């Protein structure tokens, strides 16, 4: 094993990561709050009404960030899971496990806000449209991942089984993303286009700020959760005892 890889490995050890994560969490909370306030200010107070959709379009500032995060978190989770399967890092399984509930929450929020948007816009809460269906599948995948992991007692085995499921489910992500292109559906196509945005710049800004807020939020929550998982899984090691003793004092 080369020296560099070894260092990487040490850094990826829970023992080294735990205090680091603890120091990073407040910063991400601060960033999340900052972007969140800015995004909501722009989106709900500054942005003008949409010509076709009226005020209902403001759901976009919630719906799009939630949808993006649900997909993005899945990719990150699958990445960690695959890493764990390939190299047997202890940290990677914990990261995957920590990300899943937050991802599931955003998938649910994407569905919820989408449904609440669909009623006024399309006149129905739900259609079996490709994007909507694949987003629903994403939520199921998250739930399945969580359920599978919690059904297996041995954490090593749980990590591996979860990793396989996560990797199999990755095919769903491009389907969600490109479904509006591949099938002509009720759902809106992609309108964020850096070259020539079809949206008013203000709207775009609001959306991006909200998305950034969700991103920072996800990182903060995932770090919190991974720290909890580390304590739980490594409770018999020396470092957890020392860490807890240090925190108490």
């Amino acid at each position, binding site marked *: 094993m080369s020296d560099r890889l070894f260092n990487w*490995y*040490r850094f990826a*050890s829970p*023992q080294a990561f735990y205090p680091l994560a603890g120091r990073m969490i407040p910063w991400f909370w601060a960033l999340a709050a900052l972007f969140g306030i800015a995004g909501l200010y722009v989106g*709900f*107070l*500054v*942005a*003008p*009404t949409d010509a076709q959709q*009226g*005020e*209902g379009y*403001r*759901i976009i500032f*919630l*719906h799009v960030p*939630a949808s993006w995060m649900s997909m993005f978190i899945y990719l990150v989770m699958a990445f960690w899971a695959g890493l764990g399967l390939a190299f047997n890092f*202890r940290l990677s399984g914990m990261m995957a496990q920590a990300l899943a*509930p*937050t991802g599931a*929450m955003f998938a*649910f*929020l994407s569905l*919820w*806000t989408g449904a*609440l*948007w669909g*009623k*006024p816009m399309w006149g129905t809460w739900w259609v079996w449209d490709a994007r909507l269906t694949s987003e629903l599948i994403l939520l199921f995948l998250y739930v399945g991942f969580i359920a599978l992991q919690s059904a297996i007692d041995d954490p090593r085995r749980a990590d591996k089984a979860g990793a396989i499921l996560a990797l199999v489910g990755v095919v769903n992500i491009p389907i969600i993303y490109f479904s509006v292109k591949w099938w002509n559906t009720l759902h809106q196509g992609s309108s964020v286009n850096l070259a020539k945005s079809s949206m008013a710049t203000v709207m775009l800004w609001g959306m991006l700020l909200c998305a950034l807020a969700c991103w920072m*939020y996800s990182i*903060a*929550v995932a770090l*919190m*959760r991974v*720290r*909890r998982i580390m*304590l*739980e899984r*490594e*409770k*018999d*090691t*020396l*470092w*957890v*005892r020392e860490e*807890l003793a240090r*925190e*108490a004092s």
Partner: protein
Amino acid sequence: MIYWNSLADFLAMGKHGLYVWGSFIVMAALMILEPILLARSRKSLIARLKRQYRAEKLDNHHPPREDNP
């Protein structure tokens, strides 16, 4: 700068207040609830671990595992 004329207008959101605020409240609630629940479960976990360590110290078996990655 601010687009709205009155608070009532803001709350009504055209005809779509129910939908917009329904989305917003659920999203906000979940995003606030999640970290709170996490912090609480962390606290109870730490309390449980401390109890366990004290019990182990009392009957003095189960030496802590060295960290071996």
